[in-house]
């Protein structure tokens, strides 16, 4: 037997939600939601509230009138299994490298190349070697933990999460994790290889591979519906209460897990309390990332995800994202460009390096698709989204053929409101030897992370826990003795990358 369900499509019969929470946290949002209820269908999207107007900027146009900084965005973008270094690293060092881009950077095209800082010749100092796993530390600077066999967990928060903690501010979604190719490694275990974002060893933030679910996470909160926020928050209060009671009965590891749950509840509460965005929301994408006749729709999924991210940034729904394009040691085959052997498998095959190159070019084209969507959206102050973002592209190794973590490729696209150099430079710490076997490297990949972090937070003091110069075999670079002063993590930015507005 069924009765009618509560009418969740029409707000007319619902009054003001009862105040069963403290009014203090509610006051700010009432007005916003009334605005939201005026939302109306228009074309494919839904127009909500008011667009971000110039009137909302301060007189210089450099900050919001309410004193907040204009938003900046950070994205980490992952391409597993490395590149072909000799076709990736530009031959020109410093400024002007764009005049002669490498084959694997050329797909970025004339509009995007000026936005790109290239970092080459850097050493990842991870002291533990598993294959692939250690390369993932280029995104957090922390040695993996619980390593056994092909198992490991992340040793510390990834840079996107460190930055999210600082810049998420009033956004509805603190950060979003996106996956493109579903065919992740089946031989590796643990969290390291299957997620680009981690908050701690037991808090991987796994990517979402279905664009419709990404849409839901980013935008469905703002679809017009009756204002039941007070009730939802009351439910979450009960969840908190239950979690805290449970915590009291548990050991330290489980208490920490429940604490992470409570943090997530807090983020959901913030989302519920957030003012609806001032923009036109996208419509639900039709792409769901299902194979078509056995072929992964990588191109189409990347397109849909890139659109969603561009919308999300423009609407200021989120400011931080990670994009897991293809995993390290993944089973992905680039069928769409006629390949029939897995990309990772090819990287290990010395006779298949041309196919690897084609795969990297294909991936860089997808990366360009994403960057171009950011570039084409211009905010009221005149900057496009790429001007206001920093996008870190990296991999889990340098050359796929050796899976080395010397000279891991790193790009920084977008200058983050001139915090980074624009036009971009090619920073090279060590000259390239010209062959896959000659992978001299110095410097520190964590310096790139630290440079990114300082661009967002000039008060930051370090990133990661690795000790530069400590080689995996326990010896010290250039000597058998530890250096007089052991430096843990990176506290060094790369001056060549500093832009005109650098404050670090």
């Amino acid at each position, binding site marked *: *037997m*069924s*009765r*009618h*369900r*509560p009418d*969740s499509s029409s707000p007319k019969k*619902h009054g003001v939600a*009862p105040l*069963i929470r403290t009014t203090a946290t509610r006051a700010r949002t009432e007005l916003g939601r009334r605005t939201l209820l005026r939302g109306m269908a228009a074309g494919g999207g839904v127009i909500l509230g008011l667009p971000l107007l110039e009137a909302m900027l301060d007189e210089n146009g450099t900050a919001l009138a309410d004193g907040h900084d204009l938003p900046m965005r950070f994205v980490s973008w992952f391409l597993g299994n490395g590149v072909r270094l000799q076709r990736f690293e530009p031959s020109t060092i410093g400024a002007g490298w764009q005049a002669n881009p490498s084959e694997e950077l050329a797909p970025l095209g004339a509009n995007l190349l000026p936005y790109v800082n290239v970092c080459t010749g850097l050493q990842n100092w991870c002291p533990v*070697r*598993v*294959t692939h796993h250690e390369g993932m530390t280029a995104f957090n600077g922390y040695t993996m933990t619980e390593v056994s*066999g092909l198992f490991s967990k992340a040793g510390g928060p990834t840079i996107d999460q460190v930055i999210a903690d600082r810049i998420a501010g009033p956004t509805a*979604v603190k*950060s979003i*994790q996106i*996956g493109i190719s579903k*065919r992740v490694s*089946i031989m590796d*275990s643990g*969290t390291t290889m299957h997620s680009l974002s981690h908050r701690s060893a*037991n*808090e*991987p*933030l796994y990517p979402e*591979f279905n664009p419709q*679910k990404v849409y*839901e996470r980013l935008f469905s909160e703002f679809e017009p519906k009756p204002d*039941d926020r*007070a*009730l939802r928050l*009351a*439910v979450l209060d*009960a*969840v908190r209460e*239950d*979690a805290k009671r*449970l915590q009291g*009965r*548990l*050991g330290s590891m489980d208490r920490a*897990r*429940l604490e992470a749950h409570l943090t*997530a509840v807090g*983020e*959901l509460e913030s*989302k519920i309390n957030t003012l609806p965005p001032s923009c036109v929301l996208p419509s639900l994408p039709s792409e769901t990332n299902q194979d078509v*006749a*056995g072929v992964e729709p990588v191109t189409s999924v990347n397109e849909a995800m890139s659109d969603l991210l561009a919308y999300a940034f423009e609407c200021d729904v989120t400011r931080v994202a990670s994009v897991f394009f293809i995993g390290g040691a993944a*089973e992905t*085959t680039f069928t769409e460009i006629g390949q*029939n*052997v*897995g990309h990772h*498998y090819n990287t*290990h*095959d010395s*006779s*298949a390096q041309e196919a690897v190159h084609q795969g990297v070019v294909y991936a860089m084209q997808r990366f360009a698709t994403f960057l171009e969507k950011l570039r084409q959206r211009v905010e009221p102050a005149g900057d496009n989204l790429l001007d206001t973002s920093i996008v870190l592209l990296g991999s889990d190794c340098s050359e796929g053929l050796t899976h080395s973590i010397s000279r891991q490729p790193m790009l920084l696209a977008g200058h983050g409101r001139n915090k980074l150099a624009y036009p971009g430079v090619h920073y090279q710490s060590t000259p390239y030897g010209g062959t896959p076997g000659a992978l001299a490297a110095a410097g520190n990949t964590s310096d790139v992370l630290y440079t990114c972090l300082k661009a967002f937070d000039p008060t930051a003091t370090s990133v990661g826990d690795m000790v530069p110069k400590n080689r995996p075999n326990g010896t010290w670079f250039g000597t058998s003795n530890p250096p007089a002063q052991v430096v843990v993590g990176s506290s060094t930015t790369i001056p060549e990358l500093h832009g005109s507005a650098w404050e670090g």
Partner: protein
Amino acid sequence: MRLSTLSRLVTGLGLLALVACGDDDTTSGGTAGTGAGTTGYQVDPAPGGVRRLTPSQLRYSMEYLLGAEAALLVPEPDNTPQLRGFESIAAAELSYSSSEVDGWESAATRIADAALDDLSGLARFAPCVNSAPTAACYEDVAARFGRVAWRRSLDDAEKARLVAIANAAQAWGEGDFDTGLRYELMAILQSPNFLYQVEVGEPHPTRELVRVLTQQELASRMSLFLLHRTPDLELLDAADRGELESDEQIRAAARAMLTQPEARRALDRFYGELFAIDSLGNVNRTAALFPEWGAELARSMQEETLRFIGDIVFDRDADARELFTSQSTFVDARLADFYGVVAPSAGWSEVTLPESQGRLGILGKPAFLARYAQPSFTSPTRRGRFVWEKFLCDQIPDPPPGVDITVPPEEEGKPQTMREKLEIHMEEPSCASCHQKVDPIGLAMEHFDAIGKYRADDRGLPLDTAGEYSDFGSFAGAADLGLILAEDERATTCFVKNFVRGSMGHLETRGEKEEIEALAERFAADGYSLRGLMVELVTSPAFRTVGELK
């Protein structure tokens, strides 16, 4: 010839039954003992605490709680998180992320709506939603539905909090009863008391650092393992009455659970995960070489293997070593064509596979053979590793960093067999120690191509599937290997270890070693009944107690 080997094997193993322990009931009594007694060892149980319900446990629990429509609304992750090959271990260690908590709120809302669309699910536990939909019913829902959702009785404060939410929602909904119910359900489903399996127990009367699961906790642990869902009302009632106390009571309850249809589905999920065939549809095979490969064939292969296992365990309660030795399988029309056997007139039927293909048990099943291969060719290394890890519970180290893990490419016009190509891995010193252990096992299966189809030769090159091995003796091919595995004590113990990992969410610990060995002996003595093993496992002190809280 193969079948006679099997029967010899089974007869020979009868001996073991005599030496295995009898019915020494060392664990009975109110303390759910810890294995101390005539066995001469004590179980030091693995740490207790909380575990997340896995995605399939959430789904099947929802089906029991609110019906099939509601179950469909439980989010299904694209890549279900696993640690060490098990969702259950991920569930014991990983936290809920913001996106999961956010997504679950949306799901809980939709599930509540589905429950209101068809009240019959909820009415099974709280009939008042149909018969007396007034505010007083909210208390009933909290008490009755809350109890089955949270797998324990709610205290007054918990009930009061839910009722307050329902009342507030009803007021907001201008007196609409269902609106109150909607938010009450959302609160019940979002609570950690629903989302986490609590295994905290109570201090053991005599042993420090050991905690005895409450009977409600034990009911949950049993049900979430054996049925992959929340314990039903009858089991909760039994726990509340104190009827999950003695070994015999627990055995009886477990046996009863194993007669329910959900038990078969739960074992499907267990083996679907263990053998990684749940994700078979996700593998690429080169279309030019394997035109028949596709999602439909993959689905048929998955179902075949699960039917094969289900037949052994549930239809016949047969010797589990048939998983290694049976020459029969189940086919639909697509697989009949694949194997070259007569197709069933409709649906599925059992067939005996042609002796010439040498397919015995799982090692001959295309779901396994296709899962562990590369897009264009076989992978003896992956197949060998699978056997070591999943059937012998032995961990194979990884290739050292920076070594070439590919097989050498063929020169134009000079095809080579996989054995020839892998020789370098078995000789190169940095590769040899592992590849010598792994590859011969996988090479035994070279008559099966990258989608598991039988081939007499490799593009005209003769195949040599023989191997010799200190651990195993010599074998002529995959079929021999199956017979050898059936006799291997490590494989017997590995059945137990895999169940420990899957049911309790941890790799077996030192403190459980003797108990696992004892369970393996009892398993062998019991004619290798996997159902018997599951019953004995849940009765074991390792299952009924926990150590320090993690």
